[in-house]
């Protein structure tokens, strides 16, 4: 293996070099896919800001909740990279500071420059912090204020939980709920402040959200819904550092906070791409091949914008990874099209699944709702159909049929024949088809 620093353009007869910026789930999955179909196509260099091999970010929630161990969330160990011949360069020194598209090389914080023949940008996303008085005085985040994006956040939260006992989470989306649940499990008193009148308003309808809220409340989490944050109050802690003390709401409520977790959304991390002149809007613009406007440069994951959409869930990332690998491998047949992915909440004991459209909105052709409620049994289901085709689903309490609904929605099949039993799930519908009696001559007449 060549030593770092002696990066030079590919010479005749050598394999082309693929440089990957980012060591998150999108990057890892793309490499997995690529190695599976073209193991010897590239020399690969992987640059990651976070130390160590890649881990499964999805599992940060159970990690925080103490339900699993750190080792269980690693995607690959160092040996794997070695075996695959991947040059794994991680840590803040390998944070990429610049992409030089003319010379086809990237520059790292430690000054190294690395040539690429193909570049894959997988820089992910950053927390989208709200405009909030006192949140980051002087441009630096206040002590005790965190996002919920990486292992470092988890580490800090775990420490905070040991020290303090009041936590406030801003943002009642998936991440916020998982953080709140985790902190609650760690013994903190958790209050979650959410702008919308109900939780998970982008993934759930009000009824399912109310069930979810009731369940989480029963576990001790408090909620302030339709809550507008006004300011973050701070004080000087024992170490003399400015530290968060409370969150103040527009209605005057003051929520004491030893820890403030802000999960009000993410924004694609496009800094590098934009700086090197790649076309970006919200995210790095890619075509259906996950190629940026520079044909040598691909991008996948939460940093991209594809046909006007950006991404925050893992399923589309995996689909992109597959297409991107197909392109990088020179096969060139893969095309990425977005399929709305289902949502699942990683909170143990809570079964929640949502998919596609959520409400029969006032559009030209509003979908029709099928609703099943068994509040005492803790079960709620809603399916949205348009022209007898599934366009949305919310499942609470029992989600085993989720993948089946996802499949029905993906294939867009006409469900007229199953409609009366559809909400009761796959097993019921299959039994229906088996037991449907043959039409007798008399009945047919």
């Amino acid at each position, binding site marked *: 293996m060549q030593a770092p620093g002696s990066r030079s353009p590919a010479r005749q007869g050598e394999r082309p070099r693929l440089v990957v910026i980012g060591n998150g789930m999108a990057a890892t999955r793309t490499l997995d896919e690529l190695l599976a179909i073209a193991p010897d196509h590239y020399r690969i260099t992987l640059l990651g800001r976070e130390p160590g091999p890649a881990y499964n970010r999805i599992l940060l929630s159970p990690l925080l909740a103490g339900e699993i161990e750190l080792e269980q969330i690693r995607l690959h160990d160092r040996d794997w990279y070695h075996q695959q011949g991947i040059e794994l360069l991680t840590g803040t020194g390998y944070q990429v500071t610049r992409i030089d598209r003319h010379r086809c090389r990237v520059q790292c914080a430690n000054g190294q420059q690395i040539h690429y023949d193909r570049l894959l940008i997988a820089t992910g996303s950053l927390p989208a912090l709200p405009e909030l008085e006192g949140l980051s005085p002087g441009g630096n985040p206040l002590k005790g204020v965190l996002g919920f994006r990486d292992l470092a956040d988890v580490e800090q939260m775990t420490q905070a939980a040991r020290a303090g006992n009041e936590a406030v989470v801003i943002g009642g989306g998936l991440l916020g709920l998982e953080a709140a649940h985790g902190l609650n499990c760690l013994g903190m008193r958790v209050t979650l402040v959410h702008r919308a009148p109900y939780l998970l308003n982008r993934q759930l309808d009000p009824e399912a959200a109310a069930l979810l809220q009731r369940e989480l409340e029963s576990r001790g989490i408090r909620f302030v819904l339709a809550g507008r944050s006004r300011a973050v109050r701070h004080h000087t802690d024992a170490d003399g550092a400015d530290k968060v003390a409370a969150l103040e709401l527009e209605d005057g409520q003051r929520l004491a906070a030893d820890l403030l977790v802000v999960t009000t959304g993410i924004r694609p991390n496009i800094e590098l791409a934009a700086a090197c002149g790649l076309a970006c809007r919200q995210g790095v613009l890619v075509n259906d091949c996950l190629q940026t406007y520079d044909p040598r440069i691909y991008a996948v994951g939460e940093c991209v914008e594809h046909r006007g959409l950006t991404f925050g869930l893992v399923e589309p990332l995996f689909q992109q990874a597959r297409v991107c690998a197909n392109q990088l491998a020179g096969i060139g047949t893969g095309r990425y099209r977005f399929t709305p992915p289902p949502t699942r909440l990683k909170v143990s004991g809570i079964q929640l699944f949502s998919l596609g459209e959520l409400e029969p909105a006032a559009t030209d052709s509003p979908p029709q709702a099928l609703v099943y409620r068994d509040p005492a049994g803790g079960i709620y289901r809603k399916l949205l159909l348009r022209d007898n085709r599934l366009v949305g689903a919310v499942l609470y309490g029992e989600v085993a049929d989720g993948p089946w609904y996802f499949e029905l929605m993906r294939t867009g099949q006409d469900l007229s024949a199953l*409609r*009366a*039993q559809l909400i009761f799930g796959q097993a019921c519908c299959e039994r229906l088809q088996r037991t449907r009696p043959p039409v007798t001559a*008399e*009945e047919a007449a």
Partner: protein
Amino acid sequence: MSALITPVRADASDRTPASRCVRTTCPYCGTGCGIDARLPADLDSRAVATIEGDRLHPTNSGSLCSKGSHLGETLSTRGRLLRPELDGQPCHWEQALDAAAERLGAIIETHGPDAVAFYCSGQLLTEDYYVANKLMKGFIGSANIDTNSRLCMSSAVVGHKRAFGSDSVPACYLDLELADLVVLTGSNAAWCHPILFQRIRAAKQAHPGKRLVVIDPRRTASCDDADLHLPIKPGTDALLFNGLLNWLAEQQAIDPDYIARHTEQFDSALAAARSSAPDIATVAAACELEVAAVEHFFRWFAETPKTLTAFSQGVNQSSAGSDKVNAIINVHLATGRVGRPGASPFSLTGQPNAMGGREVGGLANQLAAHMNLEDPRHRALVAQFWGSERVPEQAGLKAVELFEAIEAGRVKAVWVMATNPVDSLPDADRVRAALERCELVILSDCMDRTDTAASAHIRFPATAWGERDGTVTNAERCISRQRPLQPSAGESRPDWWIICQLARRLGFGAAFDYQAPWQIFREHAALSVLDNRPDVLPRGFNLGPLAHINSTSYEALAPIQWPVSMEAPAGSARRFDDGRFDTDNGRARFVPIQPRPPHYRCDHAYPLVLNTGRVRDQWHTMTRTGLSPSLSGHRPEPEVSLHPDDAARYGLRPREIARLRSRWGRLLARVALSDQMRPGELFVPMHWNDQFAREGRVGALVNPATDPLSGQPESKHTPVAIEALDARWYGILLSRNPLPAAADSADYRTRICEARGERLMLAGSGEEPDWPSTARRWLGGEAETGAAQEWIEYEDRSQGVYRLARLREGRLQALLWVDPDPELPDTQWLGALLDAEPLEPEQRRALLSGLPPQGTRCGGATVCACFGVGKNTLLEAIRTRGLNSVDALGQALKAGTNCGSCLPELRALIQQQYSPRMPPSQAGASRRN
């Protein structure tokens, strides 16, 4: 004799050594089957372990039909009237009796005896009937006592009296087996007299040469075993038999010797027959039959000396019913086939004791013991016997006239006993209105809520079957005992006791001083014997030695067929076998018949003919059979059967609700397509009423035309119109407890008894209610606020689909299913969950899906009621186990092995599965037209 049958519902575990056995008689149809009931030794217990056919009873030899088999399910006190009631308030017997006597007495005093009337029932026991008749005709002094037998048998009575000189059935059941040709006309015996039909079927199986011809506008279950079915145009029976008489004469297939020696008026009868039905072509055209089929029937009749013609309501219930009966009797007289083994006309009685009622004179134009009101010698004899001076000279009002007189105010007081005229009489809404206007309505009934009950001022709680003690006479003149199995419920009393109590209060105590039914029976028997000698006043009805019966011998009385005499102390199987009849000159009379069409014709406004009758597993107005979940599964709802062509013509789809209208009333029923109907004709069962269905009383539709001689209504032929209800929603409501407020906005609402609660079938045509709130109100959650209510709900609002279940502590209490489609799911498995154990998660999840959870079977609609085998179970067995005959099904599932009345349906299911691959000769076994 039919093969002995595996007893139904024999539950060995219930049989303790300390049990006793009671022999009694079934309370349903006129077959009069013996029943063997096994009871705990404890006399005060109401528990009944098993009900089985009495193997020693000559009628059924151990068999029972589906209805009789399930009598055990009807013996609870649920729904019973248990206390007397005066002006709507419970009261003591003394108060009720005193008030009844006082008010009745006052009306008699003011307006005379003809201002009061009794309306009785073929379900009274002979003893009840006897004292009712004695009170009215002997002491009140009016002949205004009539009976629901008027709706059932009275045309046969007229036919018998005109031809034979007395109301005597010449044949016996054994003749059904001895006959080489059985002609069933106007009778669906397979459903209405199942045990008799089984005897016919068994005889045919044993002797394949025997033939069965069924004459019926519908291709009924009875046709399944028939060698020939004549789907006759309604109302043309007399013409067919006139044609037969004429043809027999032409073919010289008559018995001139018999005609000469034992009959009179043959020539005029033949002339009438010839002028109305000169040849087969004319007959076939008029009856809308194929010429070849008519010829077949005529030829078989001619060449089969042992021919039995069994007839029932299809003949009797007609404005020309008496003539139809005589047209049938005429051909039997012409061939000398009366009262001979296997050869007779044979009236199959509808009710359990219509015959007993006739024997005691329970009809307005009879006296007692088969004597005639018009005959002064008979009047004198009865008056002397009773010690009465008031025996009326004029016939009283027959049923339909009686209620017209009530409407007109000529009759101001009526005592209704053991029947439900608001449902069963024709033009029944008018009957209801008349009763509501009547000054005094007294009602004796065992049931609390009947449609007639609402009009009653005084109500007497009568004992029910299982408690009553007395005798009944079946269709073959066989007198059997009904014996009590259990103590009287609440304060209920026997009808005879109630009548005697009232008689005493009216001042006739001396003549009604009976302590026990045997004393009444002995008096009845004594009257039949009185002066009954050839030289004095000979009558056919004679109970001879039974006039000396005592308590012990009455208790032990074995079934016996009258006449009983010194010469025939064991009774008589047949009558008139010697050619001597009960007329003055001993000769039978031919009656010249001019066939008449039904009174009301179809027209543009009412283009269809409505036919009414029974279904297999229900009885009359369902007061008893409606209590049995097992019996409710076969035809759970009032259905209107019609030919698919008519359904297409009138825009009716299967399973939706139709509204029928006639000039007299209207009705709602579920549409059932049937190619067994003739186009242009509808069939609606007679059973449903306000207690079970909203707008389900077929009596409200039926025209009030009656036979001029018998007064029997034309219940088989009413012009009607039909249209779709235009229902916006259909529903099922299951509930553990009755929910009277439920489904208030439904047009159609039928209640069905379930093993663990009840089920309502619903349909509504109006604005659809707001389901979430309406359903919660219907399911009755508000009333139980204390308990932990759980609601499970499903809605597909844009499709009009809504489902809601109410649970308490995890147990299912009630469930509503609403759908725009009339095809609703099978809820049998849900009914079984009502208030059972807390639901398993699988069950809970499946509750509103309409499909039972994995592993739960849903038997489907009942086919075999005796063993509770459903359609789904049968179809699956046919499909998966390759069962391709009714015998195989019977071996595997027991279905059809008891009363056999489901065999046609079993065959149809097999055929449905196999017909595409089977040659037609196997698929459609019998010859049909």
